[in-house]
């Protein structure tokens, strides 16, 4: 789950760069940049969840 989250973070970033380079209007770019950030937030959630230890395990 941790690796998947980190890969999602990078994938979201790649989506953002692609949008900036390939699209032309500010509106289109804004839409895809937001989508890329959404993917990154998904990745961030996965990485956070992967660091939660199972309940009952004392730290």
């Amino acid at each position, binding site marked *: 789950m941790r690796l998947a989250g980190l890969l999602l973070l990078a994938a979201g970033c790649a989506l*953002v760069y692609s949008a900036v380079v390939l699209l032309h209007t500010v509106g289109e770019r804004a839409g895809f*940049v937001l989508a890329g*950030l959404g993917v990154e937030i998904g990745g961030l959630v996965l*990485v*956070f969840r992967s660091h*939660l230890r199972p*309940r*009952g*395990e004392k*730290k």
Partner: protein
Amino acid sequence: MSETAMALTAVFLLPIPLAAAAVALMNAGLGRSRSASHALLSSLCAFAIAAVAYALTAPLFLGAHPFDDPAKVPAACIGMLGAGLAAIIPLGAGADRWRLGATCVSAAILGGIVNPLVAHWIWGGGWLAQLGLRYGLGRGYLDTGGAASIHAVGGIAALSIAWVLGPRRGRYSGDGMPAAIPGHNTVLVLFACLLALMGWFGLNASGAILFNGIPAGRVAPIFVNTMLSASAAALASAALTRVRFGRPDPSLCANAWIGGLVASSAGSAFMAPAVAALAGGVAGALVTLSVEWLDFHLEVDDPGGSISAHAVGGLWGLLALGLFGRVPDSGQSVAQLVGIATLLGLVLPASYAWNWLLDRFYRQRISPEGELQGLDLFELGAGAYPEFVIHREDFYQR
């Protein structure tokens, strides 16, 4: 740049080390008394190593002889001080359990590679700075005083190190409830807030002149915005903690103050005073809520509040500049979002990877015995407060 502007920039560079001193004092004050000396020595070593590492790698980012060419010296100086400051920030998240040797290696990577690379992208005419020219996105990615290159980078490294080290011993019970481990010196923490203000005046003013083309005679509004942002953040936190817990919380107010300063670093040169105060107030609320969220729900043990104050405050400040900044060109919000996406999607995985790899080869966390005894005695052989033995059974050398 005119001679007057150069002279004023040099004057504004002088107080920047106070920002580093403030962050170091906060990290020490919010940690345990048995690790106070270690916290401050770690800060000094991290600052020194990051500065040396920056000096070694600066020619890669600034061109040949950055410290000999009079035109490049101011940028090299603010870069070096920024690298040192960025290297101190993660120490707050690793307090009470991060080995001195590991902090030094981590500071070298942060100060010698990550911080100058991101700073080059933003301040050195790199691809983020050129988003406006190449793709018509506003004036390109804007960051007046290092909200991204210094604070968000440092805060993201703090999150990585908190993950790699894990929480302090006894921090969480079996059901995930955090045990209170209060900071040992609130006086240091609150004094650090006032020191930080001086440092941020220097950071924001010199950054605005050097990297945003603000005339040297027009830096007074930047001071006003910096002050208003920090004040609104601290007051928002005081009000929020008063409503939620029945009384204001000093450590959260201090973290919010720093968060407000960090947020002001992004756009203090491009905001009206009322907007800067609004952005600061939101930053204070976000920092306060994120400290609680990280601690209670995500089990991220960050004794110094570095992640919330520097990463959350910095990212919010960068977004607020895009939303409310006085930049006439369209697409500025998109440029700011691209920068935020870079910090989250590129810097965070890279930061996690280098800390994880380092931990494989050179264990970053202190041994359980060292954590019980305190880092002062275990790694340095003497405590910060030898005349005041607070935890007798743990403090004595065994």
